[in-house]
């Protein structure tokens, strides 16, 4: 690793640490309970969007079914909390581990495809889970969803810390930052670079002696794990889960967030999720047709700035840094 890139990595680590500290301090700012609740929900969605963005960024794959992993994370946590006396750590491990394992096995089949075929396969799998949960009322309450009562003490803390916006925001923000940092470091590693090389020229990578299928499956399962973690946090905060979380439209929203934020950047999808939620909230106050406004926004960004909001931010930063106006 060159001195320049190791300095950049150190700087990114320092920024991540600062972001975590900032996240812990945010609840002390006078932003009001509504906004605090909104950004707390935003962090769960940001984690979900990051999982979708990871697939676009690393593998060039567009998933219409990642709500599966978010929903499974939430449902497995809810079902185990409700029906078993397992230790909370084990419940969380299972709620993340099982969707990850399923994601890996699913990936061994679906990542052999690219483009529309891949998107349709993920969509089909997601809809299967949605239908199962929707129809199986005895298991998960069907259309009504299911609510859970968290045990009074979780991990030695009062479980209220997971259901209070000020504390839950700090927890989920720190986890989101850790995920983004982890992905940045993975991208810089040889394995991360190899995954990019697979995205750019898979056949050549195969003829260099690498098993491309396993690496793509690994990235898919990593993104499944991130999605499942988002679902676990969502469930802990809301203590309620419904089949909507598994519906393909939820995957679609995550995709829109990733594209608006800029899927080519690690930070982009999370940024897109926050902007999406705040815009939705603001627009929702003005008109019930907020989806039309979001649709137009998506078209404008896709055509005008395909690199998304993170791309715009990067261009502005470069202009500022170099004092030039000709940066594209």
């Amino acid at each position, binding site marked *: 690793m060159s001195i320049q890139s190791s300095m950049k990595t150190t700087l990114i680590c320092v920024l991540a640490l600062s972001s975590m500290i900032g996240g812990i301090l945010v609840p002390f700012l006078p932003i009001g309970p509504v906004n605090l609740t909104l950004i707390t929900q935003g962090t769960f969605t940001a984690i979900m969007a990051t999982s979708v963005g990871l697939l676009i960024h690393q593998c060039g794959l567009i998933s219409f079914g990642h709500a599966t992993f978010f929903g499974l994370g939430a449902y497995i946590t809810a079902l185990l909390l409700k029906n078993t006396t397992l230790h909370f750590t084990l419940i969380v491990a299972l709620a993340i581990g099982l969707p990850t394992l399923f994601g890996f096995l699913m990936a061994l089949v679906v990542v052999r495809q690219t483009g529309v075929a891949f998107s349709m396969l993920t969509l089909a799998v997601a809809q299967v889970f949605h239908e199962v949960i929707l129809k199986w009322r005895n298991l998960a309450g069907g259309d009504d969803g299911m609510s859970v009562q968290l045990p009074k003490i979780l991990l030695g803390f009062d479980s209220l810390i997971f259901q209070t916006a000020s504390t839950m925001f700090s927890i989920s923000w720190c986890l989101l930052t850790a995920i983004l940092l982890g992905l940045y470091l993975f991208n810089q590693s040889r394995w991360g670079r190899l995954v990019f*090389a697979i995205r750019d020229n898979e056949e050549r990578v195969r*003829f*260099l002696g*690498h*098993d491309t299928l396993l690496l793509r499956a690994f990235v898919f399962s990593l993104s499944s794990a991130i999605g499942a973690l988002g679902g676990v946090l969502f469930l802990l905060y809301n203590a309620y889960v419904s089949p909507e979380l598994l519906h393909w439209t939820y995957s679609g929203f995550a995709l829109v967030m990733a594209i608006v934020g800029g899927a080519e950047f690690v930070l982009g999808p999370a940024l897109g999720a926050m902007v999406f939620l705040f815009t939705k909230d603001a627009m929702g106050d003005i008109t019930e047709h907020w989806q039309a406004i979001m649709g137009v926004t998506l078209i404008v960004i896709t055509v005008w700035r395909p690199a998304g909001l993170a791309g715009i931010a990067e261009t502005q930063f470069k202009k500022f840094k170099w004092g030039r106006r000709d940066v594209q």
Partner: protein
Amino acid sequence: MNPVALQGIKLTRQFGGFFALRDVDISIPAGEIRGLIGPNGAGKSTLIDVLSGRSTRSQGSVLMDGQEIHQCTPQERRRLGLARSFQRTSIFTTRTVRDQLELASHWKNDDNVQEVMDHLDLKQHQNQVANHLSYGHQRRLDLALALIGKPQVLLLDEPAAGLTMQESLRLAQLLRDLVKRWQITVLLVEHDMDVVFTVCDRITVLNLGEVLMEGTVDEVRSSSLVISAYLGRNAA
């Protein structure tokens, strides 16, 4: 005579009723540079594809060092020491030269990145992004990717395509040096007859998916069969 490094026995590749290859036998001793020539559509690239695992064979066997490898995936064949280059330059255009050569050496500890860069005159371009290189250097990079890890057998599909005559002859010389230095066995598909006649020890001629003849450079140049099917009077 050296032991056989790569062998294809009765290789057939069929697309519906069309035979791209029909009962092709080819046997290349270790350390030899074998030319593979023939008119367009003769099956040269198909043979390289079948030998490298890019395309499946309909019938026949592929052996490397006497071991059957036709069940192996391309990546397994590469790990066994069978490397190839592509007719169309197949590199990672957005990555630097060094970066992609390092990626190529990922699975092997005794990588020869530095050595390959030195030999192929890529050292001065190591920090350049590949799509900023000249076409000639991109072709070299393609070859360099195949040479990482010192493969035993190298399949080259028109490495001189699009190069100037000077570049082609320089590439030919380079190949000769590499084969001598690393004891690589090479199967070379090339339309540039100057390159083929300069570097090859023996030549196999394909026509319409079948082996027309095999022999030394002089034998092939003087064969009336080859002249009428491919070379024309001027080459003799």
